[in-house]
C-alpha cells in the first residue's frame, strides 16, 4: 500500500514514550482552526504556485507534475508558506515497505514508531502493513489520530497497534464542529472503545480560551474514561494553544491560556482519577 508522506523524523522526543521514529502522513479530513501544521492538510495538486518562490531552485514543474529535489532544498519552507492549498511540494508517495526501510536505519536506537499527520488513519491498510513489519522487529506501534476512523471496524489494524493517541478537541458535538468542522460522535465512540480494549495510550486537548468550554470537555472526558483507567493507565496531555505555524486568518483570533488556567485543568483531571497528566 502507498501513502503520501509529509516527513519522517528519525528520532522524536515528543511523539510517544521513549525514542521513536515519527512518520507524518499527508492529508486531513478535519479543519481545526488552531492546526499548527496546516501544510499537512491537503495533497499537492501540482499547481506550481510554489515553484518560482523557491530561492534554491529545488522545485520545478515538468509535464504538469511538480518535482522536488531534496539535494537542493535549503529547508527554508518558503514553498509551504506560499502554498494556497494547505499543502507542501515536499511530500512523497511511499509504500509501506519503503517507509519501513527508512525506519530500520534507527534500530536499535528506537523503541517504536508513531504515525501521525495530517490524519494517518486515512491510510488504514498502509498502517496495518507498516505496523505488522514494525512489530515483527520488536518495535511498538502508536497512532496519533483525530479519531474519525471507527477503530471498531478495523480489527486488523488494531491487532498490530499498541496504542492510540487520541485528540478530544471538544466533548460537545456543536463545539467540536466549531473547532474542527466535523461532529465528534465517532471520536467519542473511539475513546470508549479503545479504552475498553486497553489501546488508548493518551488523550489530548488543545486549550484556547473562548474557543470552546474546556472545563466541560475535560470534566466530561474524565467521567467518560474513568471506568477504564484500571484496564490501562491513560495519559492526558493538555496542550496550550500557540500561534506558531497556525494560519494567519485564525492565529489572530485565538487566545493562549495562562499557566494558571492550565494548572487548573490539570487539577480537574487529577480529581477525576487521572494520574499521568502532562501540560505542554
Amino acid at each position: 500500500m502507498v501513502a503520501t508522506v509529509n516527513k519522517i523524523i528519525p528520532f522524536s522526543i515528543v511523539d510517544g514514550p521513549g525514542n521513536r521514529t515519527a512518520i507524518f502522513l499527508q492529508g486531513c479530513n478535519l479543519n481545526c482552526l488552531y492546526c499548527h501544521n496546516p501544510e499537512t492538510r491537503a495533497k499537492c495538486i501540482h499547481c506550481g504556485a510554489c515553484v518560482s518562490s523557491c530561492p534554491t531552485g529545488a522545485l520545478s514543474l515538468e509535464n504538469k507534475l511538480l518535482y522536488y529535489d531534496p539535494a537542493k532544498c535549503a529547508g527554508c519552507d518558503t514553498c509551504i508558506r506560499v502554498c494556497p492549498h494547505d499543502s507542501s511540494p515536499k511530500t512523497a508517495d511511499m509504500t509501506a515497505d519503503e517507509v519501513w526501510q527508512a525506519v530500520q536505519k534507527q534500530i536499535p536506537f528506537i523503541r517504536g514508531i508513531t504515525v501521525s499527520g495530517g490524519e494517518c488513519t486515512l491510510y488504514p491498510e498502509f498502517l496495518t502493513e507498516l505496523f505488522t513489519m514494525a512489530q515483527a522487529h520488536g518495535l511498538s506501534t502508536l497512532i496519533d489520530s483525530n479519531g474519525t476512523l471507527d477503530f471498531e471496524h478495523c480489527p486488523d489494524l488494531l491487532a498490530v497497534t499498541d496504542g492510540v493517541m487520541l485528540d478530544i478537541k471538544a466533548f460537545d458535538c456543536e463545539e467540536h464542529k466549531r473547532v474542527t468542522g466535523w461532529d465528534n460522535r465517532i471520536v467519542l465512540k473511539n475513546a470508549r472503545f479503545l479504552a475498553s480494549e486497553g489501546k488508548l495510550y493518551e488523550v489530548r486537548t488543545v486549550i484556547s480560551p473562548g474557543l470552546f468550554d474546556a472545563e466541560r470537555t475535560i470534566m466530561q472526558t474524565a467521567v467518560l474514561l474513568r471506568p477504564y483507567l484500571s484496564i490501562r493507565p491513560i495519559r492526558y496531555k493538555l496542550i496550550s494553544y500557540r500561534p506558531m505555524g497556525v494560519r494567519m486568518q485564525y492565529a489572530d483570533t485565538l487566545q493562549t491560556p495562562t499557566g494558571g488556567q492550565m494548572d487548573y485543568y490539570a487539577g480537574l483531571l487529577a480529581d477525576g482519577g487521572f494520574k499521568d497528566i502532562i501540560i505542554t
Partner: protein
Amino acid sequence: MRDISMQRVNETRENILNIIKSPVLTHEQKVASMANAADSLLEVLDLPEGLDELMNVPLDRKCICDLNEGHAPLRPRYIIPDYAKFMRDGCSFLQLPPPADLYEALNYLLIFYKHVPSVTNFPVYLGQLDTLLEPFVQEVDDATAKKLLRGFLLHVERTILDSFSHADIGPVPTRAGRLLLEVEAELQHEVPNLTLKYEEGVTDDDFAILAVKAALRAAKPSFANHRMFVQELGEDYVIASCYNGLPLGGGSYTLCRLILGNIAKRADGIEDFKSNQLPYVMDIMARYMDARVRFEVEQSGFFENNFLAREGFIHRERFTAMFGLVGLAECVNILLEKEGRPGRFGHDEYATELGESIIKQINEFNEQHQSPYCEVTGGHYLLHAQVGLSDDQNISPGTRIPIGEEPDEMIDHLLVINHFHKYFPSGTGDIFPIDVTVHQNPEYVLDIVKGSFRKELRYLSFYEKNSDVIRITGYLVKRSEIEKLRKGQNVIHDTTALGMGAVTNGRVLERKVR
C-alpha cells in the same frame, strides 16, 4: 641533569613573577602554577631525537603534545586508589581505622582525598561511591543519608578545585546509588564528575531513568558501556578524570597526544601520511612516553615512598599509560583536500573509512610497541581520544565531529562515531545537549543509551540545553561561573578558565541540540 640557558632561567623567573601578581588566579592556582614553572627548568628525561621540532613549536605546527605534564614527573598523571581497601583496612599513614558508620566513612574519605596526588594536584578518582557507601547507608533513613551526602558532596566541590575529579556508580542499582543521584540532581555541582557504569539487564530501567533525570539537570552522570569496559580491562576498572577507563588500584603514568591535523599538514597526501609522517611521529611520541614512564618508575621514588603504594592502595603493576590523539576530523579533511577529493569528516562514507583506517593504524602501531612497565595492559599503552585543551584551535577532540558540522540527524551522528569508540579503552566519548521537551520523556535518552551500547559505542554524555552546569569537553563547568570569570572575578575551580577557553575556541555552546 642537562644545563639550560640563563635566558630560559630568566624567562621562567619572569613567568613566576607574573603568576604571583596575577589578579585572577586564586592562591591554590598560583602555587600549582609556580610548581609547574619550577619543574620546567629541569632536564632529566632521556628525550628521543626529533621530539623538539614536533613538540616545542607553535600551535599550528605542533604534532606531539604532553599536556603540560612537566619535565620531571614526580608522580603518575592519574592515580586510582583502591578505596574499598581503605574502607576495609583503614590507613596507617593517615592514622585512620576502618570507618564504623556513614559519618566516619564520609569523613575519612574526605581526609583521604586530600592525600591523593595527580597531575592536577587533586584526586582524579573519588571511588565507586555507591558500593563504598552501601553498607553504611543501611543504618540510616533516607533523609539522614541525603543530608550527610549533601554535606560530603559540598565539601568535595569546594575543596577539590578542579572538575577532572570523577566518581563512579553502577551497574547494579543500590540504595546508596539512588540517594547519590537524587542529591546530585538537586545540587547541580561542577565537581565531581560522575559516571554510571551501565549494562542493559543489569542496570534496571528505574535506576537508569533516575540517572537520566540527574544528567538532564546536572550534566551528570555520563553513561559508560560496562560490558565493553569489562571485556577490555576486566571487572576492576574505573572511569576517572574526564572519561578515562583505567585499572583500579593503578592508574596512568602519563598521557601524550598526537595532533593528527598538524601531522596531516606535513604530508603530501594519504599515502605519504600513512607510510611516512604518521609512523615517524607515533614512534617519537611512544619513545617519549617510554622515557617519562621510566623516570617515574626508576628514578622518581614515588612507588617506593608514597603511602598509597606502600600500603597497597595502588600497585605499580596496575599502572599503564595513555597513548592519546586529537583532531581526527581535521586530519581527514586536510588529507581529502590534498587528494582533491570532496567530502567532510562526519558526512561522507569515504571520510569515515579513511578516519577509521587511520585509527586502526595507530592501534596496530600501539600493539606492536613494547611499553615499559605496562604489564596490566599486556605491555602496551591504551589508546585515548583526548578531549582537547582550552587553547586548541581548529583541533576537534579525539575523533569527534567538529561542533557546527554535526549531521542534521542524530542517527547519522551516532552511526559515524560508532566506528571509533571501540578503539579507545582508556577513554573517548560524545556529548549531546537535549531539547527541553525531554523532561517529559527521559526514556528518550535511555533508549539512545541502550541502542548505542548494543552497537559499539562506549561513552555518552547528555545535558538539557539550558542547563547552567554543562559538559565542556570531558569536564563540567557552570555557565554562570564562566560569566564571573569573564568579568574578571576569582572563581573557585581552575577548570572554569579551561571552560571559558573552550567556549571561545571550541564553540562548546554551539553544539547541535538533539
